[in-house]
């Protein structure tokens, strides 16, 4: 049994050295992890476990901060800080606002 994230020693190929510019939303994800950690509302290991259990397909497909926000959201729901219902309603609301302001 081996986690799909546990890849030390696997025979992978050349290292891609291109660098993307961090989008503001990505920096905010990072910021929220730091702030929530400082407030003891999440630990780095909860973040990691969430990423390690997103599933191999999501691990491949999602970008670094997409994995982080998915894990943070899961941890907050798990701890009862937010509910799935609150999150879903707000995501729908944000999507509607974005369409209206476009």
């Amino acid at each position, binding site marked *: 049994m081996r986690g799909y994230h546990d890849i030390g020693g696997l025979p992978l190929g050349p290292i891609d050295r291109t660098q993307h510019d961090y989008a503001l939303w990505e920096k905010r994800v990072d910021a929220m992890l730091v702030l929530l950690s400082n407030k003891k509302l999440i630990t*780095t*290991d909860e973040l*990691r476990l969430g990423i390690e259990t997103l599933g191999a397909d999501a691990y491949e497909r999602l970008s670094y901060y997409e994995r982080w926000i998915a894990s943070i959201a899961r941890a907050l729901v798990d701890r009862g800080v937010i509910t799935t219902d609150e999150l879903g309603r707000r995501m729908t609301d944000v999507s509607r606002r974005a369409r209206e302001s476009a």
Partner: protein
Amino acid sequence: MSPRFKPGDAVTVRRAYPPGHLRTPHFIRGKAGMVERLCGNFPNPEELAYGRNGLPALPLYRVRFVQRQVWPDYAGAPGDTVDIEIYEHWLEPAAGETSHA
């Protein structure tokens, strides 16, 4: 918790493959190395991952492994090493060695 090992001790990483959040990489399990230093006592990440406090804190060691003993086809120099931090519960005395309690 007083440390079981000290710098210079020969240790082996346990061969266990549970699910869950582990910080002992797959590639080093079952390998033999040498304790380079005791890093201190830290809460157990395997527990922290589930929102528990990870206490009592566990001794954490930096363990040095000779690359040629880790990878059968290692292509570098004989002295090349890999250092990994490993929590005490993953370590056993290397065969023929006794730990110093």
